[in-house]
């Protein structure tokens, strides 16, 4: 038996856990124990999946006895299993952080009891979106995670959260409707929604129809991934949610959109028909996002803007559709999930220690709480891409791929990437100078808490511990960048080749349609 047949458990375990925690809604300790152990088990399972796929190649699992192209299939390849592992690590860390916060705060602020089931449903939705080999099932996965995220976003139902929740829900529903329209049109044009089957049947359509379907999918995923003209909703809605919720949203939800873009770009619409518009959009995402970040004075909003900006790097890597570019993008996604999440977790700690997340009110944190300063400094430098951190390595990979491609637009993107990286450093340095470096008295409106010296017992150990763990994972990505780049490049090669994916779903006898445009020169592994 192939171990990959266990992959449905990655969705089932969190859903069963959600049911169990829902039944235990009055027993908080039991809830915590159940959700933490369920997520640990899922993480373990996904590590097994990654190992089995790494050795045995892409595997598909047919569900319910309906064989593809009729039934729903789950496909585990290197990219999806890597995403699963990274997302589980992050969601486990955030869960531990959130339970720490819940234990410290008691039940006064939020209905904590509803948090656990909703959170597990969110994880199940993310896993489903990563695993599925069926376009409509991808839609269902998105809806599962979005519906859970609506609840988490408006947790507690305070005024600002409801206001932010309205924007978020309406935008998400509109993007889901667009996605559904695209699915309907694709089904009307080809008569199938299985991705592997679509890869074959879409190639038979004429170029105009293909472009229409392609653009519709890209717009739907672009809203979810917060790519520039469609990114307006993100900085408005994310910062108001509770700190752990913002952290997991920032880490995972936009990346699910990026994952869907990568999957459709490589599998359904290979070649370079839309590469130029994608590159332009990537450049604008990087620059507009980071310029927005510079204007902010709230750390959470600033980080939300850097999140938008760095989505541009991933779209850039995707738009090159070469092994080097896509591999670097895969690496960058893994790096960015951990780093962005840990920065939001640290911001939650800053808010607890300093009483505010506005850099106009903070000051002197480096002296008051050196550990906090270190916890902020390491992922912040990682985000800005200072050598030797993984952010630098990911950006370097993207730049190399861009230079290798050599078109004027690619070079412009390389320059734009460097500028964005420097501006990120500037934005981060602004936070550092004000919140950590200056004296508290120099702040415009200093918070009262800052005048009390020492760690006045407001930072629970579990919260600090989980943040430390995630920061360490971020640093570990730097240490193990070599093997990780190998996995990323391998998965990029498999995705661009498409044969393994299609054969694992439809059987080896299926003829994979040739690419209309040959792939750009592919570079070897670094």
């Amino acid at each position: 038996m192939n171990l990959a047949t266990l992959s449905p458990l990655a969705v089932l375990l969190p859903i069963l856990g959600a049911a169990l925690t829902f039944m235990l809604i009055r027993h908080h300790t039991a809830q915590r124990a159940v959700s933490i152990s369920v997520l640990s088990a899922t993480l373990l399972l996904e590590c097994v999946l990654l190992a089995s796929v790494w050795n045995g190649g892409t595997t598909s699992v047919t569900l319910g006895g309906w064989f593809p192209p009729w039934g729903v299939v789950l496909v585990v390849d290197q990219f999806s299993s890597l995403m699963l592992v990274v997302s589980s690590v992050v969601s486990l860390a955030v869960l531990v952080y959130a339970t720490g916060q819940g234990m410290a705060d008691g039940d006064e602020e939020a209905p904590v009891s509803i948090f656990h089931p909703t959170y597990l449903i969110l994880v199940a939705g993310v896993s489903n979106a990563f695993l599925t080999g069926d376009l409509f099932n991808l839609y269902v996965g998105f809806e599962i995670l979005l519906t859970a995220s609506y609840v988490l976003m408006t947790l507690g139902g305070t005024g600002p959260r409801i206001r932010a929740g309205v924007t978020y829900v309406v935008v998400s529903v509109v993007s889901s409707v667009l996605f559904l329209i695209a699915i309907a049109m694709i089904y009307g044009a080809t008569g199938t929604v299985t991705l592997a089957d679509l890869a074959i049947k879409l190639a038979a359509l004429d170029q105009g129809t293909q472009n229409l379907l392609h653009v519709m999918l890209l717009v739907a995923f672009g809203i979810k991934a917060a790519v520039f003209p469609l990114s307006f909703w993100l900085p408005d809605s994310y910062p108001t949610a509770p700190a752990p919720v913002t952290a997991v949203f920032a880490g995972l939800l936009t990346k699910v959109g990026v994952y869907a873009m990568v999957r459709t770009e490589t599998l359904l619409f290979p070649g370079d028909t839309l590469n130029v518009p994608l590159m332009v959009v990537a450049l604008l995402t990087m620059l507009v996002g980071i310029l927005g970040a510079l204007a902010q004075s709230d750390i959470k909003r600033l980080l939300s803007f850097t999140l938008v900006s760095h989505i541009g790097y991933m779209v850039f890597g995707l738009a090159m559709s070469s092994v080097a570019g896509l591999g670097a993008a895969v690496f960058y996604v893994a790096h960015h999930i951990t780093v962005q999440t840990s920065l939001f977790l640290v911001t939650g700690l800053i808010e607890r220690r300093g009483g505010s997340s506005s850099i106009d009110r903070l000051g002197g944190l480096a002296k008051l709480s050196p550990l906090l300063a270190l916890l902020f400094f390491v992922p912040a430098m990682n985000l800005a891409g200072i050598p030797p951190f993984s952010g630098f390595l990911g950006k370097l990979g993207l730049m190399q791929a861009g230079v290798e491609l050599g078109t004027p637009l690619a070079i412009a993107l390389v320059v734009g990437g460097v500028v964005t990286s420097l501006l990120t450093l500037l934005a981060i340095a602004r936070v550092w100078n004000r919140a950590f470096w200056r004296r508290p008295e120099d702040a415009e409106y200093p918070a009262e808490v800052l005048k009390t010296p020492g760690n006045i017992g407001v930072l629970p150990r579990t919260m600090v511990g989980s943040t430390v763990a995630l920061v360490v994972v971020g640093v570990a990505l730097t240490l193990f960048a070599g093997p990780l780049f190998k996995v990323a490049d391998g998965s990029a090669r498999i995705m661009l080749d498409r044969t393994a994916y299609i054969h694992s779903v439809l059987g080896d006898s299926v003829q994979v349609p040739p690419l209309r445009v040959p792939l750009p020169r592919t570079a070897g592994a670094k």
Partner: protein
Amino acid sequence: MSINLTLLIIMGVLYACGIYLILERSLTRVLLGLMLLANATNILILSTGGYAGLAPLYSRETKPDAYNDPLPQALILTSIVISFAVTAFMLGIIYRTWLLARQDEIQDDLEDRRVAKTPSFDAEDDAVVPLETTEFALIPPSAENRNKPDATETPNSSTTQEGGSA
């Protein structure tokens, strides 16, 4: 694939009304718009199923070309359930907005407004650095005196004047 013109026209009208309504500022209208959009999309999915026909389970003898495509109907069922859940949630949010703010309109983001109003001059980042914050003067005072005669020059000059008169 046969096309049902009535369905298509209904779909178009629903889309038009839905898009018009989600551009409104009132939350209830936005919700109605979203519901219309979801239903229009359901009709679109239905029309991708092709001609009308018997259900596949009608009888054992149903010919493959006598029944219509069941898959779009399964897709529609799923999407109806999903839009039902989202509508219920939206209603909850709208009610909560009404309770909290007594209004049914989308509210501005205060932080957005504040950032937009912030002048480009930032007191901490952009202010002229004070002439001298250390007791070890690095710049020759003569060069500074020309720029800022009032701040540093006046006390010195007044003392010298006093000394001169006395």
